[in-house]
């Protein structure tokens, strides 16, 4: 009897706990989702209704004018999409290939120079030359100004991800496994491609996703290396609009009104650009996530 009521109490407690957790997470997801919804709905408002009533979740007057303005001449937008897709895909594949090779090599205990190469990749996390030498190397020695490679190369090797991969290889893949492969007659490449990589899908998926997101959200490289509008990434295309607005407002009084503030895009156009920028990622993300979770569980079961 006593026991039962205890159990009931426990149930009660866990139920309450469940409600509380749900409540907290519902509130949390609302906090995340509402701003995005607001951006979407502002992009669908007419600019008069924004000036008159401010931002509203349900627009006072509904209007597609921002999108029709953007799509009136969508070449710029689609080109920027194209650039981002190409850069992201190439960058992610190259990045995974190079980082896996590097991380696997320095994870092997029998590699003599592994300490040196680990340090070599670790050092730039603490110290780097800063932006000016970086810029000089890319523009004057590599001649990559206005080239898509200037958007791809900087993101290819990330010390932090590389070290995570190394640790993963060291801890989850027993050296005995590699040795036995060797005994069975597998060469180095066979060991890597048929034994190590299949076992490392979780880390590859994780790092691959981070790299993809990194490339997708990158705008700074476009800002400093690209002068021609046809080669900028979608994020920069949007970011520059915001930057332009800020800059012109800030310097308005100095320019003594020489530059008209009127040709700045309206709020709804800015928001519409934002929606156009995030839409593909929102669509793609669930697929990624499925793969990502699958990768993780494979790791868990095997581990």
């Amino acid at each position, binding site marked *: 009897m006593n026991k039962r009521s205890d159990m009931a109490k426990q149930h009660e407690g866990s139920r309450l706990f469940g409600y509380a957790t749900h409540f907290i997470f519902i509130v949390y997801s609302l906090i995340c989702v509402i701003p995005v919804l607001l951006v979407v709905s502002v992009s669908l408002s007419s*600019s*008069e209704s*924004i*000036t*008159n009533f401010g931002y509203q979740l349900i627009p006072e007057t509904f209007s597609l004018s921002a999108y029709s303005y953007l799509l009136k*001449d969508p070449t710029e937008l689609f080109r920027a999409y194209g650039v981002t897709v190409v850069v992201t895909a190439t960058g992610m594949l190259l990045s995974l290939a190079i980082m896996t090779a590097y991380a696997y090599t320095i994870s092997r205990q029998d590699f003599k120079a592994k300490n040196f190469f680990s340090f070599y990749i670790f050092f730039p996390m603490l110290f780097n030359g800063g*932006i*000016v030498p970086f*810029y*000089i190397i890319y*523009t*004057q020695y590599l001649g990559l100004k206005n080239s898509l490679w200037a958007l791809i190369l900087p993101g290819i090797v990330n010390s932090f991800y590389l070290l995570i991969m190394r640790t993963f290889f060291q801890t989850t893949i027993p050296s005995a496994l590699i040795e036995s492969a060797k005994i069975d007659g597998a060469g180095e490449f066979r060991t890597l491609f048929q034994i190590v990589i299949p076992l490392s899908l979780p880390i590859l998926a994780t790092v691959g996703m981070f790299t993809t997101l990194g490339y997708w959200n990158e705008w700074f490289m476009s*800002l*400093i290396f690209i*002068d*021609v*509008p046809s080669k900028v990434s979608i994020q920069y295309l949007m*970011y*520059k*609009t*915001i*930057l*332009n*607005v*800020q*800059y*012109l*407002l*800030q*310097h*308005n*009084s*100095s*320019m*003594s*009104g*020489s*530059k*008209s*503030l*009127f*040709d*700045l895009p*309206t*709020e709804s156009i800015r928001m519409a650009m934002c929606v156009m920028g995030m839409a593909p990622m929102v669509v793609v993300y669930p697929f990624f996530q499925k793969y990502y979770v699958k990768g993780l569980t494979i790791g868990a079961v095997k581990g």
Partner: protein
Amino acid sequence: MKERSKQVLKSSAALLLVSSVALTGCSKSGTKDGGATTAPTTPAATVEASKAPALAPYTVSLRYPGTPQKDEQAVEEAINKILTKKINATIDLQPIDWGAWEDKLNLMFSSNEKADLVFTASWQNHGQYVHKGAFLALDDLLVKHGKDIQKSLDPAFLKGVQIDGKTYGIATNKEIASNTGILMRKDLVDKYKFDLTKVKSMADLEPIFNTIKENEKGVIPFYVMESIMPAQYFSDFDSAGDVTVPGVLLKSGTDTKFKDQFEFPGFVENIKLTYKWAQSGIINKDAATTKTTPEEMIKAGKAFAYVSGLKPGKDKEVEGNVKVPMLQLDITKPTTTTGDTTGSMLAISKTSKDPDRAMMVLNLLHSDKELLNLVVYGIEGTHYKKVSDNVIEDMNRDGYNPGNNWMIGNQFLNYLGKNEDPQKWEKFKAFNASAIKSPALGFLFNGESVKNEMAQITNINKQYFNAILTGSVNPDEIIPQYQEKLIKAGRDKVIAEKQKQFDEFLKNKK
């Protein structure tokens, strides 16, 4: 028979082509050793025109802030036709987005990238770039290749841009002065028959705004936002550089002493007035935070008036954007400060491979009407059509609309828009001539030695300045707080430094 003669024609044409290519090849290689070095010694532009083939081809880059245009290449080709004929040069327009401008310029200078003509202005850290040695001193080049510039530019422009006695930038020839006033909707002024002749100061506007407030529901009588703040515009201050740096004097006065801005009672009065108006509903409630421009508000029919720096024909310019008849009410007298004379310049980068040629192009931008209008308006028949000799009408503006006419060359040579006053440039000249010259004209403060104080002050300003000047906080309470923080941050040291530099400037001037 016919066939044959055609053949002959063809082959002789080909021969002609080949030989002419070969000849130009010769002249190219011939000038490489001699031409570039002899060119600088030729004195006048007219002489150069006849000597044009002697110059080696060179591409002059022109960097300015603005949105890159779709038809840029076509426009460049049209420009190149003129430039090749005159000085055997071509142009490379390099507009850079406003938001990226400062970053890119800094990288360009620190990495020694090749550049020729570069836009610069006092509010664009021109002084700093000069101190870092990013620009060439242009005095000799100006004498050699800048005859037309010297002829057409007002002496105040030529002298006013000098730093330590040397010229590092050539001002764009445009209005040299500015005054403050109100831009307002003409329909409402007519409706209530306001007597604008009585308005002599900011305070005189109150009855007008009250009428609007009472009778026009949903219209903000006086629209205020960040950087469009009445007390600042009416202040009559010359801060000899960045407006956020403490230490100002009155530009229409004669006193040569820099003081803190709050020591001027007129300024504090106007701030109090702003606060009062914000309280009573004359000024919009969200003034400190809004990002909606007054032009958008007026277009939407939500605002009546806003404060603005003025020049002749400003109302017509705005009218073109907002599509509502506008009226400008000039309240203060036009004044000229260093900020006005150095508000827009073109400089030659020290990384230019051929500064002489860059100067020749600059000279042409100040004198060749056809060339300049190509740069600012695009190609006739594509981007605009001529209504009469000097008046144009827009055609395909999507292709080329760089909005750079106030940055490049001699604005007085620009064609006029259809809705603009045909007398605009004459009025500009009269306006320039009537301007009162600030006692600190020609002086530009160099804040290098008080950098730390200035950084602190900038932070404090961010917190207080806009809030106070948009009337969002009670000035009686907040100004003393603000001042106390500024004094702690070293305000007086900055003012003293400014005064020291200015005294030196005055001494050298005599």
